[in-house]
């Protein structure tokens, strides 16, 4: 039976999707703007005979996640900004231990305690991380409540399939707003974890999981193997949205909720005859460099828009460095006030005029 659309808040959508995905254990400590996730799961998980633990701190929550994930079950935590900061050591260990688990990070505005406004200031935190060593946190960024559901499913699947921590990177706007969406069935196959999971050594040899490797060659190989997984994830699990990029002279790059505002501005620009398109990476880490390169080779300039001081911008620049020399403009600011369609449109118009006039002269605009 096809399920009907419901009016759902982003945070509840994520929580419901986690339940539907078969999440067996949740560990968390409340923080706005994501507290509804824990609130929902605190009643739903016990009802279903699953584990809900109100951890005493975020450090405890991330290490509980490590423990639960090591048994092969689907496990999740959710948090925000300054509290995700506390989890960085644990994330490095989870990545090093190759443990599947999901972290939902609903960004608030920082640095420090900041406040609960929607922000994109934790792109770096999610994709570069603060933990030690060579590792990546695979990161997906939704732009709607429906995507909060679909990508929660994707996070569980990718984490289970590749034995890696995966982050769903949302923000205060997505977490707090309601929008029509459908919580459909978990669409992915179940992954058998029995070959490695710590499930008790009854009738089998004992196993252990650790990130420590004393042999230098073994350690090297281990990290190489982990990075090979990131290549596979980029190859097999990449998700992105391209809008009106065909024939565009300028492409806007944006992610998450800012991308939906940018999309409306691109529509406005197209109506006014400006050849503008939008590229929205949904998989943020590993970053889809090749696609950015392909797009960059066909346009005269890129305008990156973010609600931060220029974070994904660095990945855009790194992607096309040495491949094509086009201007990369940036429009962004620290969080506090949400961007408007008109504001972004104005930026598009200015950048378009500047780049296109320089290249072709005014007659071509």
């Amino acid at each position, binding site marked *: 039976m096809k399920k009907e*659309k419901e*009016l759902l808040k982003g945070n509840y959508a994520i929580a419901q999707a986690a339940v539907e995905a078969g999440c067996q254990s949740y560990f968390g400590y409340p923080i*706005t*703007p994501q507290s509804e996730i824990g609130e929902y799961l605190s009643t739903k998980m016990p009802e279903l005979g699953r584990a809900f633990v109100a951890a005493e701190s975020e450090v405890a929550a991330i290490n509980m996640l490590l423990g639960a994930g090591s048994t092969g079950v689907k496990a999740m935590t959710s948090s925000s900004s300054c509290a995700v900061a506390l989890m960085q050591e644990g994330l490095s260990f989870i990545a090093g231990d190759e443990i599947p688990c999901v972290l939902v990070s609903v960004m608030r505005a920082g640095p420090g305690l900041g*406040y*609960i406004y*929607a922000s994109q200031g934790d792109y770096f935190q999610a994709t570069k991380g603060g933990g030690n060593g060579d590792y990546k946190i695979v990161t997906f960024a939704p732009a709607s409540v429906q995507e909060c559901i679909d990508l929660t499913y994707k996070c569980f699947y990718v984490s289970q399939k590749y034995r890696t921590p995966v982050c769903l990177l949302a923000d205060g*706007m997505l977490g*707090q*707003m*309601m*929008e*029509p969406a459908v919580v459909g069935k978990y669409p992915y196959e179940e992954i058998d974890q029995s070959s490695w999971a710590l499930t008790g050594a009854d009738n089998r040899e004992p196993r252990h999981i650790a990130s420590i490797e004393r042999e230098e060659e073994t350690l090297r190989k281990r990290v190489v193997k982990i990075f090979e997984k990131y290549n596979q994830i980029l190859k097999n699990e990449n998700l992105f949205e391209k809008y009106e990029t065909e024939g565009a002279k300028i492409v806007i790059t944006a992610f998450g*909720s800012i991308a*939906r*505002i940018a*999309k*409306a*501005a691109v*529509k406005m620009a197209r109506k006014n005859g400006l050849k503008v398109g939008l590229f929205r990476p949904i998989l943020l880490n590993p970053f889809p460099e090749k696609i950015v390169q392909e797009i960059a080779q066909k346009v005269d300039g890129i305008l990156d828009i973010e609600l931060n001081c220029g974070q994904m911008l660095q990945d855009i620049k790194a992607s096309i460095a040495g491949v094509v020399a086009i201007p990369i403009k940036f429009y962004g600011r620290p969080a506090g*006030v*949400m*961007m*408007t*369609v008109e504001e972004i449109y104005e930026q598009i118009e200015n950048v378009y005029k500047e780049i296109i006039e320089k290249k072709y002269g005014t007659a071509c605009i």
Partner: protein
Amino acid sequence: MDSNVLIAGFGGQGVLFIGQLLARACMNEGLSVTWTPSYGAEMRGGTVNCTVCISDDEVACAYVAEPKNVIALNAPSFAKFESKIKPGGTMVVNSSLVKSAPSRTDINYKFVPMTEIAHNAGHEKMANIVSLGAFIKTLPVISKDSIVNVMRTMLTGKKAIMLEGNIQALDEGFEAVK
């Protein structure tokens, strides 16, 4: 269509509820819609607001700095949002509680004694529903029937006894705007 309305009043007046009622009705009509509460350091008895954005395309942004329309259920909300409305916009005001005179000439005002209407109908707590009736008459983004249909799905079980009163309040708000 691309419109939005900010609904504001005292905590307890049912501001968030009528926002969701409107949003659900829009959803059922196949429109794109978002509902966003004001949030931050809110306190009991303080003012509360929510924004509903409606579009027949995708809704771009759920936050609105300058709303096209405002429903003000109390005086602090009138004071706070009157100046923020986009020129050409509409303000539907609960004149039972708002005694200030309008200060702008570039927006439309609809003064409706919502609390009084609700009280006379025997349901003082339904001033919010009266305001929604007045709003959809002023700005026909959605039909009255669509709202009633959502009420029927939201007011079930123990709440079912409130259904008739709510429908009456909606009707009276609708009729109060000429």
